């Protein structure tokens, strides 16, 4: 753990982090219409993985602990599934799952087509993105993590 880090790598990754995050966010919700959630989530995950690679796993783990990761994984799916289930409940069991235009509270306000677009961009894509981001980060840690006892040794050092 006491390896001296290279200043170039250090600074570059620090400066790159926000840019990667912004790009991920743009991919996720910047475009008009469906798509991009998975890719955006991947890019955001890449930013965190880069951080862990440069500053070490323990430092990275401090940024997002595993419990937060679990929470994000579930939260993204709940956004997606909840949006689908809300369209059933809000329409009094008349509309199908994920029938966006039946999401009356928004649809009455801005019209059915706009409601559809808003839900796809703001709820569905963000939900997918959050889940993918959390899943990839935890995949990375699970696969890169050493034995638990080895970890403890590292922490003590």
């Amino acid at each position, binding site marked *: 753990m006491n390896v001296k880090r290279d200043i170039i790598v250090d600074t570059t990754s620090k400066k790159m982090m926000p840019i990667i995050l912004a790009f991920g966010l743009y991919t996720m919700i910047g475009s008009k219409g469906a798509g991009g959630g*998975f890719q955006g989530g991947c890019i955001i995950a890449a930013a965190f993985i880069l951080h862990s690679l440069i500053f070490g796993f323990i430092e990275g783990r401090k940024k997002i602990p595993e419990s937060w990761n679990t929470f994000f994984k579930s939260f993204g799916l709940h956004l997606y599934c909840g949006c689908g289930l809300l369209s059933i409940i809000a329409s009094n069991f008349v509309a199908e799952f994920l029938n966006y235009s039946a999401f009356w509270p928004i649809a009455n306000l801005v019209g059915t087509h706009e409601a559809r677009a808003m839900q796809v961009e703001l709820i569905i894509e963000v939900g997918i993105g959050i889940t993918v981001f959390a899943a990839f980060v935890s*995949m990375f840690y*699970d*696969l890169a993590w050493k*034995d638990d006892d080895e970890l403890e040794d590292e922490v003590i050092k």
Partner: protein
Amino acid sequence: MIEAIFEKFFQHYNFWAAVVIIFIGIYATIAKNNLFKKLLGLNIFQTGIFLFFISLGDIGSLETLGIGDATPPIIWKPAEERGYLYVNPLPHVLILTGIVVAAATTCVALALLIRIHKEYGTLEEDEIIELEAIRGD
């Protein structure tokens, strides 16, 4: 004669490539002794299938019809006016799902491999079977 065969072969070269990749993948999955190489073979196999699917969406070079290449599936006025055809986007979407599934499979397999390596200290299948036989139930 040879030219005709040649042309027929290379008209659908991406399908031939998919076939070759699929067989390399299956061969690696079946024949390799190392469990990790089996996983690599599986990934190659999946890639071959993805290539096959994406090739289905492409309508190819339509020079015989005098139209030119197909465009991406984006609504674009000039392309429509000139009567360009667009590639079928559906297989691409299917393969996006397929890639996600493949990534999930790979991740589960890697996690299993890590645990197998912790348990036995090796990834060679015959060595693992020997170790299992020594340990008994």
